[in-house]
Every structure is written in C-alpha cells, then in structure tokens.
C-alpha cells in the first residue's frame, strides 16, 4: 500500500518545465497567477476552513501557500475530489484530479457540498462568466434565459456562497465582458442593494490586474493594482465605475522570494505561470 497515494499518471506534465520556465518571465519569474495566489494567501486567516470548487489552481496555490507560511492550521477542502488538506503533490489543473488525494482525508462529494451548505465554511471561492458591481456572479446564461447569447456551465456550488462567512471571487480574465454593470443571471447573490436582507455578498475580488473589495454599502471598490498594471488598465477593463480609494492607489504586494520558492515546491508544472492567458 506504500504507493497508494502517488498518482500514476499526470496529464500534460512536462518534466522539464520546472527548469525551462526560469527565463520565460521577467521580474523574477512572477506571473499574475503568482501574484493572485499570494494575494489570496494574505487574505486568509489561520484556523479557517476553505471550500474550493472547479478551476481551483489559484485558490489551491494561495491556500497551500498560507498553510506553508502564516496559517498552518488552515483547512482546505478540495471540491470535486473531496480531498481534505491536499499537499498539492503536485498542483493539478482539475479539482477532481487524483493528485488532490495526496491529502489527509477524502470525503464523498455530497458531504463536501452538504458541509458547505451546513455552514462549515469560513471562506468560499467562486467566480463567474459575469461579475457585477454588487458582487453578483453568473455562471449560467449570458443574454436572457430564453434567448441565450453564451451558455455557461451552470451555477455549480456558488448559489450557496452566503453559507460561508466570506466569499473570495477570482477570475483569470479582468475584462469588460466579465465585469459588467449587472449580471444577466444571479448564480451567486451579491450585496443587497439598499441592504434590505440579511444575505451578505463577497468580501474580496482577485483578478490578474487588481484586488477589489466592497464598500459598506456593497459596491465594488478598488483596493490595489498589481505591479506593472496601471489604474487606467483596470478602469478600461471594468464595465462599471469602481469605487476608487482616496489618494494614490496602492500596489498589490508582490510575492516574496520565499513565497515564490514555496509555490514552486508544489507547482511542478509551472501552471501558475501560464494560468492567466
């Protein structure tokens, strides 16, 4: 049974990429995927329980980085596979990958979802084909539901986001098509306009360009732009008016050298370097 926990095969794995990619990027090899993962790591608190769903690369990396640095008591539950505290041995592109079973426990998927719906999550990660200024997300249909322009995969687990204490949104595409004034379908409910109900919207938005949070009124606000990104880049690629911070817009902290080294220990295929197109 000694090899029970080793994946036998790994699709798309190029054993040389670890050495190759050193020169592919300037700026110490820091790609937007690394910055996003580090930003997520910094946003997590020790002892929290996280639920991660489909397309998990960036939250996986951020959570594992947090475990390896300031949050050793953090628990990460890997959506599809059911792995609890996967070591990311290695970081794999699909949430259902066998690699995610190099872990401490493996839960049946319905239990993962039921625990999440039962309120066991401190942090939930979500995204959308569309995200609007209140944090509403759409994974179902762009256009009307009757006359669909773009058919997304369906709402997946994100309708239950408010069952977690905090939701962190992430997307690898910060464009005006994603960040729209109003989503066409609410898969995940954002902050209530006017604040009438008890539901709460997302806490943080992590993109390849910037970090955003929400004002007390529940509208999206710029927190910082990533190194090498201008404020204009962010504004031009957001389909609504972001609330801007007063004074100079801060720059998102870059991953430190230690953080970059730690991410390489599990990102054997260099996926974080290529995750943002």
């Amino acid at each position, binding site marked *: 049974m000694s090899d029970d926990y080793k994946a036998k095969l790994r699709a798309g794995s190029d054993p040389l990429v670890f050495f190759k990619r050193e020169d592919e990027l300037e700026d110490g090899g820091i790609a937007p995927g690394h910055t996003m993962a580090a930003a997520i790591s910094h946003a997590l608190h020790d002892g929290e329980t996280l639920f991660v769903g489909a397309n998990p690369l960036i939250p996986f990396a951020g959570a594992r980085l947090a475990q390896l640095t300031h949050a050793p008591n953090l628990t990460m539950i890997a959506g599809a596979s059911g792995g609890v505290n996967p070591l990311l041995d290695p970081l794999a592109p*699909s949430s259902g990958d066998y690699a995610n079973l190099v872990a401490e426990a493996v839960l049946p998927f319905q239990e993962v*979802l039921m625990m999440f719906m039962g309120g066991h999550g401190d942090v939930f990660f979500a995204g959308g084909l569309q995200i609007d200024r209140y944090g509403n997300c759409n994974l179902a249909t762009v256009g009307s539901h009757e006359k669909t322009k773009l058919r997304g995969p369906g709402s997946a687990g994100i309708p239950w986001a408010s069952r977690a204490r905090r939701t962190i949104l992430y997307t690898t595409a910060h464009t005006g098509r994603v960040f729209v004034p109003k989503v066409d379908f609410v898969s995940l409910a954002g902050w209530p306009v006017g604040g009438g109900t008890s539901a709460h919207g997302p806490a943080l938005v992590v993109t390849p360009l910037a970090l955003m949070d929400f004002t007390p009124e529940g509208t999206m606000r710029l927190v910082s732009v990533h190194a090498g990104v201008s404020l204009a880049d962010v504004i031009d690629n957001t389909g609504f008016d972001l609330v801007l911070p007063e004074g100079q817009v801060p720059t998102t902290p870059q991953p430190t050298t230690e953080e970059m080294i730690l991410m390489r220990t599990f990102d054997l295929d260099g996926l974080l370097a290529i995750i943002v197109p």
Partner: protein
Amino acid sequence: MVDTPESVENPTRRSKVLEIEAAVALIPPESESLWVGGMHMHNVPMALVRECIRQGKRFETFFAGPSSSLAAELLMGAGLVKRVVVGYIGFEQLGLAPVFRRLAEQGSEIRFIEADPGSMLLALQAGMAGQQFAPLPPGLENTSLPGTSPDFYRQLVDPFTGKTSLAVQAIKPSVGLIHCQQADEFGNGIFKGSMFSDHLLALAAETVLMQVEGLVSNDQILRYPLQTGVPSMRVAAVVPVLFGCHPCSSHRYYNYDDVHLRLYMEAASSDEGFADYMKRFVFGPEDQEEYMRRVQNQDWSSIQ
C-alpha cells in the same frame, strides 16, 4: 476461527458479469431518468454511455450533476434526452461544453432546467432515504434559480419555526451508471480514489450498471470490506472494460486524455464535426478494443 464453508463461493450464486451489450440491454428502450456517475472529467463511465448511445436508449430526464462533461455532451448531441436538469455541464479548466452551448444558444427541443448540484444531491439523498422531498438551507432565494425553475424549487413552511423554506423533490433515477476501479463478480465495487457522489447514486438509483477496470475475487472483497464502496445488492450488472472511462480519468489507473478532450471540443463546435466524432468514436468502433485503437491512432486532420 473456522474454515468457512465453500459456499461463500457457492457455484449457484449468480455472477453479474456481463458483456457491455448485454448489460446495457437491461435498460428499457425508454426510461424515466438517467444519472451518470463521476465528476468533471473523472471516473465517468464512458464505455457504458457510448453503449447506451449505440443502443439508442432514451431518457425523459437526464440529471447533469454534480458535474457532467462528455457524458452530457454525447447524450444530448445524440438526441436521446428530452429534459436536462443542469447542475454543471462543462470541461472545467479545458473550457465550455460545445454541444451544450450550441443547443442552448441556437435553441433545441431539449428542455433545460436550471438547477444546482447542492440541491440535486440533497434530492438524491432524499430519494435514497425514501423522503418525498428535501428542504433547502437558506440562501438560494436570493439567486435567479427559484424564479427561473419554479417547478424544480418550491416553497413551503417549516412546521417547526413557521419560516418559509425552499424545497426540491426527491430524485430517484431510473438508471444509474457508475464506474468503479474494481469489483467482484457479484457487484461489490471498490473506489481506489474519490467516490465523488457515486456511492450515493448507487444507493439511490433503481437500476445500477457498473463498469470496472478489472475484476477481483470475492475473497479479496471479504479480506478488507471497509474498502467496498458499492454493496453488491445495488448492482444489476458488472462490466469489465479496461480504460472504460477514456477520455475521462479513472482514479489511480489513468488520468484524463486532455489532448483527446481538446480535440473533441474543437470538433464538436460544429454539427458536422460532432457527427464525425460520433461516427469515429461512438458508432464506429464495434468494441472497446477497437475504440482504444482508434484513440491511439487518432488522426483528427480530416475532422470538420
């Protein structure tokens, strides 16, 4: 301890091992509903799905959850399902589902019910336990789902608190197709990796067909029963078919074939390409061996 009588391997205990044609022939030509196991591109019983398509099995309702990929695509593209309950249909990081997109964006006779995997799994759990419906936790009422699918999500009053709550009707699929890495001839199945929600599916569905990478002896099952993920009485047929999940993964046996899947997604972005794919990989190969031969020698150049 004592020697167990030989009857543990009693010759008259019926083996459920069947050839794939015979196993799928157990399904009536038209069934109420189908739920296919696995999740995303993992542990999906594709060999059974392809055989269902070859035999033209029709299903009133297909439950696309918790996350369906190629199984939903092929069944919808082949016109074998009338109503699809959508939890998630897609190829995760590989991209959106091309047939699903085309059917939804250009219109089709399929009725899509916008739903979510959490509610679908609570409904499946309710179906397993004989409950008529499953109340939902709070939260969903703030999304577009209940308004879009008023037949799937209904409101009721919690008899204990007087608060309103949403609920979904119990799901008891007529047919459940699942993949286990191993099983004995009686249908005791072992998941060597994630079981996803397939253990629950096996307990809830009326007729369960199981494909496996290979058979193990009943002795091996008895040696470590804590490992058994599907108890035999829930299984109507066991179909050994190596690489039967291809192009999806089978945990601990092989990963998904992302090259094949990407080429599928490209091909299936047109009606012609999809038809060509179906001819080559579903209707063409007379058995799994021939299917794998075609996969290995895949020449996609002439695919539309």
